[in-house]
């Protein structure tokens, strides 16, 4: 026991933390996408596992082909939107249930990603290309680290502001109404099928963007990098809600703060991840841990409701 604790170096943990925060920020963008489908549209979209890797594959291959990383990242956003479009059409046009439609897209994307990359993974080195994000910027000099985090924070704040404004527009309201009460939405003249497709496109666009950034961050795109992404996204959403839910509802522009909480949720997730690794828990158990955490927190509101109903029935 003593040997175990003495083998843990606090300094090692401290050194790893900036990388975890950076990773959380990048994945936070994907978590925003999950939040939009899961919470706003009430659609469990498993496309993300495929569109995350799709975004990375498209971006990395474009950069390797000589396209500027900014352009490549934007194209990855569009690629993600196409993935969302496919799921949306499978669901609304062909009547395939939402979860199944998204699984079909996800599985199809696995082959497509292999085709895009030509093999199961492709490196992209920060030495050869002017990447937007990279772990090297974080582990490098203090100046490059500060520059990286400043850039990321500004980007995320701008992204949240854009999303906040968008969900306050007529279109954004139509999305929220469709997710909350599709009967009401249709009675008020909203084409709920169109709105579903649109929302899936926006969400998967963000996931593709996140994948593109993560591919650059770790210096490679991998066909398996999105595996279980939906669970990480949900974990981030839930951690954000549990930690800040009570705090955000009371604030002005509550929705904007909620989006911020989702990103912080993703950061917390990767900090915990790092901590658990530091405790020398085997990394292959991380997905199981994530799944359990997500299951527990999704179950809590349901069980609470059931309990209060039982109380009500007795009274």
């Amino acid at each position, binding site marked *: 026991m003593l040997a175990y604790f003495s083998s843990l170096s606090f300094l090692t943990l401290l050194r790893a933390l900036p990388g975890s925060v950076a990773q959380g920020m990048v994945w936070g963008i994907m978590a925003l996408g999950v939040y939009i489908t899961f919470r706003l549209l009430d659609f469990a979209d498993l496309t993300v596992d495929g569109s995350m890797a799709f975004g990375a594959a498209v971006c990395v291959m474009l950069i390797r082909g000589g396209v500027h990383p900014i352009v490549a990242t934007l194209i990855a956003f569009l690629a993600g939107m196409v993935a969302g479009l496919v799921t949306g059409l499978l669901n609304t046009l062909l009547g395939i249930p939402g979860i199944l439609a998204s699984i079909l897209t996800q599985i199809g994307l696995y082959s497509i990603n292999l085709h895009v990359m030509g093999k199961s993974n492709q490196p992209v080195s920060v030495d050869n290309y002017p990447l937007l994000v990279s772990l090297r910027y974080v582990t490098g000099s203090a100046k490059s680290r500060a520059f990286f985090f400043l850039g990321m924070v500004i980007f995320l704040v701008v992204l949240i502001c854009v999303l906040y404004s*968008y969900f306050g*527009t*007529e279109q954004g309201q139509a999305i929220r109404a469709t997710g909350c009460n599709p009967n*009401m939405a249709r*009675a008020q003249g909203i084409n709920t099928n169109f709105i579903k497709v649109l929302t899936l496109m926006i969400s998967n666009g963000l996931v593709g963007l996140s994948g593109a950034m993560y591919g650059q961050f770790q210096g490679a795109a991998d066909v398996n990098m999105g595996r279980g992404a939906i669970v990480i996204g949900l974990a981030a959403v839930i951690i954000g809600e549990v930690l800040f839910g009570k705090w955000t509802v009371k604030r002005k522009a509550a929705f904007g703060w909620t989006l911020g909480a989702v990103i912080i949720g993703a950061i917390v997730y990767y900090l915990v991840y790092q901590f658990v690794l530091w405790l020398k828990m085997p990394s292959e158990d991380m997905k199981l841990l994530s799944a359990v955490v997500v299951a527990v927190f999704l179950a809590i509101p349901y069980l609470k409701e059931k309990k209060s109903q039982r109380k009500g029935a007795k009274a």
Partner: protein
Amino acid sequence: MSEEKYALELREITKVFNRGTVNEKLALSGLSLNLLPGDFVTIIGGNGAGKSTMLNAIAGVWPVDSGRVIVDGTDITALPEHKRALYLGRVFQDPMNGTAATMDIEENMAIASRRGQRQTLRRGVSAKEREFFRERLASLGLGLEERMTSKVGLLSGGQRQAITLLMAAIKKPKLLLLDEHTAALDPKTAAKVLEISDRIIEENQLTALMVTHNMRDAIAHGNRLIMMDEGRIIYDVRGEEKKNLHVKDLLAKFEEVSGTEFANDRMMLG
């Protein structure tokens, strides 16, 4: 008479649910109905008589098997539900159904006030609209004008129905569909919501169809009353004759026409 423009024409509407199964049910059986502009029609009938089914056929919740639905001279039979919303205002039995619980009162009203328009990237609620909504909400006398940025989910069933009524009428629809919209409320709240319904219909000179299971309400409200059974209209009365009706007349009528007793625990006789 044929020159006259009806607010609503239903021509021989037929709808069968679960066709070809053991649960096959003829829900609407060659139903025809003409409404003059300004008609306020109350609809009664037993369970499964086709009252709500008729409203759903008009609203386009599903396509009808045959027949035409014509609103204010426009044939809307082929239009999907969301496109018919331009012509219709709807209030449902379940107060949860007519509004979006997670959205503000003013956002719900803004969505209703832009019914039938394309959703663009304009702001969801403008300052000018806000004033208009405030004034409309104040007319309810429920104090909701002070809570415009509250989530609708925090309101009571009666408050939600009142807001849904405002939303349904806000674009002055060609036809207002009230589907047992007071059935889920306590008697006092139901009376209040009915009073608001009367006033909104009167002020906006709307043509309205109101399904109710309360015979007394059916007699007291509107200028015309129809009774349905087995997917068709079995009794249609208007004007003075309707005003002089009593509940026992309706019961007798029902037995006479349908040949069965109006025994129905959901039907309120009093």
